[in-house]
């Protein structure tokens, strides 16, 4: 079969000097589900952004149905029948589903007025045709994330695209939602659409793809029929070496409770109860994982525990003493460290040097400064040591953080947060958006900290991460703890899913 899309020798360099694609060539056949897999940072998303006209490549060509194209913007791509659903959904939250679907292609009366009935008819017709069920009259902000994603897909279909690019679509879905989602994809393929599916989750890829392209380090390693490669082989080709998936060995050395949260509640500025009566305790040598779909109060919980937000009621105890309401500095002084959810917002000052980022919690301490003066010699020495120890790929501590890759930026954060032997570690999505190598490093550091007697609070939406690291698991939904698992033996992602979705809750 002739390929519908043919990508030839694409080279892409970002303004910060990162070479994201190093001569990538892929052919996509029509009416197939073609998975593009690779670690974070392998260049999958960049390649798709080029195909969709968001980024421009320095070299290479793209052919669509045999015709050479040069997209300047996504509008050009949509005209050629290519649609994309981004990792971060791009919907107008305050509009209804129907309004979102017809945004920019609204049917009009007399060329001026919106024809709402017609819009509804069109949206409804497409929804029925592709079997994608969405509540047309509800506002997008009131929908669960899985439904929002269906809206995004339908939005692309309404623009009559033949090729649909999906960037890590399942990263926000629970196992149950994922199953429904896959059924949708199969029916789209059977209706003549071509789907390009970006993922780094092997099981999924094996489950739905017809063809698989594996990328590593900006290059295509191989393109194969999905049935001809095993999960194990994909993993090996993706990472470039053998890897093992297993749970951490248990820590036999569990001590007493050192960190405790009691009946914590929080109301936001809009008087919405974001956290309701949260209680848990962590012993020294344990990792307590909070599982949950993003946006169920985890962010606020972490911000309260680290002094960035004020709780409405409840208490937080460290070694039996309340630390609620202390400033971030005072909490850090008690040896509580924080790996933040959004590293670019909180974790680093990206235009500052690596060494300046490494000392932001300790510059005022003995050695780093004498009186009011900073001792740069000492700081240089310490930061070179940290750069080496935490394997941060940079020429020196004088490199600015924005010249680093995502994984290395996270290593800067982790190097700072885990190098002062913290008693309590609050790790919020510590491996989000980083490569497998960095991921392994972060996890082994958390394990070491646990074995050395730290109490670790792990907040994650990644079930594999939780099942790998956790001693105990609690699931949070809509600001409430809906279930607690004291032991993680025999627990799978399927068991957690219904709780994360709010379908099930412990009596």
């Amino acid at each position, binding site marked *: 079969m002739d390929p519908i899309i043919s990508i030839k020798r694409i*080279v892409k*360099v970002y*303004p*910060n*000097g*990162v*070479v994201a694609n*190093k001569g990538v060539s892929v052919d996509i056949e029509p009416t197939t589900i073609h998975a593009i897999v690779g670690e974070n940072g392998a260049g999958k998303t960049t390649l798709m952004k080029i195909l969709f006209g968001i980024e421009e490549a*320095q070299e290479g060509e793209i052919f669509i149905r045999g015709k050479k194209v040069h997209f300047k913007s996504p509008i050009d791509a949509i005209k050629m029948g290519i649609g994309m659903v981004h990792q971060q959904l791009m919907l107008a939250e305050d509009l209804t589903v129907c309004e979102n679907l017809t945004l920019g292609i609204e049917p009009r009366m007399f060329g001026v007025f919106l024809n709402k009935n017609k819009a509804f008819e069109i949206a409804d017709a497409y929804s029925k045709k592709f079997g994608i069920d969405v509540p047309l009259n509800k506002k997008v902000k009131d929908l669960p994330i899985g439904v929002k994603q269906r809206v995004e897909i339908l939005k692309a279909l309404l623009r009559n695209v033949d090729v649909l690019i999906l960037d890590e679509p399942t990263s926000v879905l629970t196992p149950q939602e994922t199953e429904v989602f896959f059924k949708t994809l199969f029916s789209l393929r059977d209706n003549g659409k071509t789907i390009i599916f970006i993922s780094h989750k092997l099981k999924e890829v094996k489950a739905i793809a017809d063809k698989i392209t594996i990328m590593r380090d900006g290059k295509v390693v191989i393109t194969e029929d999905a049935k001809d490669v095993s999960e194990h082989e994909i993993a090996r080709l993706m990472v470039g070496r053998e890897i093992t998936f297993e749970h951490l060995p248990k820590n036999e050395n569990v001590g007493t409770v050192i960190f405790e949260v009691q009946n914590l509640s929080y109301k936001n500025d809009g008087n919405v109860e974001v956290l309701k009566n949260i209680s848990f305790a962590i012993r020294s040598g344990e990792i307590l994982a909070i599982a949950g779909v993003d946006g169920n109060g985890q962010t606020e919980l972490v911000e309260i525990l*680290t002094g*960035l937000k004020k709780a409405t009621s409840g208490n937080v105890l460290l070694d039996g003493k309340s630390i609620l309401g202390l*400033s*971030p*500095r005072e*909490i*850090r*002084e008690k040896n509580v460290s*924080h790996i*933040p959810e959004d590293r670019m*917002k*909180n*974790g*680093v*000052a*990206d*235009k*500052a040097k690596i060494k*300046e980022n490494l000392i*932001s*919690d300790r*510059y*005022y301490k003995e050695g780093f*400064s004498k009186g*009011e*003066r*900073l001792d*740069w010699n000492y700081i240089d020495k310490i930061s070179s040591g940290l750069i080496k120890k935490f394997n941060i790929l940079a020429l020196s501590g004088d490199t600015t953080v924005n010249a680093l890759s995502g994984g290395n930026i996270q290593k800067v954060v982790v190097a700072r947060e885990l190098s002062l032997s913290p008693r309590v570690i609050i790790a919020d999505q510590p491996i989000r958006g980083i490569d497998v190598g960095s991921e392994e490093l972060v996890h082994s550091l958390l394990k070491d900290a646990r074995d050395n007697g730290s109490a670790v609070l792990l907040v994650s939406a990644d079930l594999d991460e939780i099942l790998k690291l956790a001693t105990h698991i609690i699931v949070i939904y809509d600001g409430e703890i809906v279930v607690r698992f004291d032991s993680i033996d025999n627990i799978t992602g399927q068991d957690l899913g219904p709780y994360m979705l709010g379908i099930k809750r412990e009596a």
Partner: protein
Amino acid sequence: MEKFILKYFNLMRTIIVILIGAVISIFIIFLVSKNALGSLKYLFLGPFLSTSRMGNILEFATPILFCGIAIAIPFQASQFNVGAEGAFFFSAAIGTAFALSVKLPGFVYVILTILVAGIVGALWGFVPGFLKAKWKVNMVVSTLMLNYIAYFIGLYIINYHFRDKSAGYLASYWLPQSDWLKQFIPGTRVHVGVFIAIACAFVAYYFLYHTKLGYEIRMTGFNFHFARYSGIDVFKVIVLSSMIGGFFAGLGGISEVMGIHRRFLWQISPGYGWDGVVVAIIGRNNPLLIIFASLFLAYLRIGGHVLNLLSDIPFEMVIVIESIIILLITAEAFLETMKYRITVKESERKEALDESAS
């Protein structure tokens, strides 16, 4: 070569921008002047053709340098405090009032007058800093408004309480001679204040890059959320950066009074605070670079005056050049494509090296 360009990209960009400003002004002068070559000579060489004009450059650069530092420190904290103008004027007025109200022995008199003006500037800077830190009052707005308040209170104090009625125009009494900053180049009004200003630039540089508070200011400026998350007291940073800026503006105000005029004689605000914004931008908020930016701006202005006096081109020509330079320097994307292209080349070369190594 590429590496060199990337490393010194900002410096090169500034130089290219200045050259573009110069080329455009040459073009305009050729369009409008009857004696274009003569006019060009006045504009570019004029400032160097006599001792008094070279002296003028230094005289003029001094208050601009003080104000440039005053602007740079809050700017480094990403606080857009444009209150140097007000702090300059207000501190000069209060400093003058102080000097005329006390009698002290020589050296102590000078030091104390300067310090009082600096402290008044710092207290003046406290107001917008506190308003921002406490109630998130937009600092551009508050400092702009406070500039007016400073202006009118300053005028009131001088005109109603320290006015020399024998002067024939609105001015304060003369400061006692023991409270003057010495002018030390005969034929010019260049005074000791120029050394104080340069010393202040070095102190401010050291402060920003080598002290704890300076570090806190810069980190807050880079990323406010990061600073707060790291445990830096951002409230303190906002208030203090604004106060320290005010302090340097205050020194600038009183140094003008003690070194040049020897009495307070401004009836309109002299505008050095705005020149301070200009040099802070050209010098990218680095106090050491601001020394050069101040000299450059003073040189341009003096060239403009010479041009105005001796040719058929008006002073406004210089304002045109200045505006072009500021526009291009603040246009962040200017020359970015060039930088991008060089980056691409450099990365591809590195990639090829890695490839052949492995």
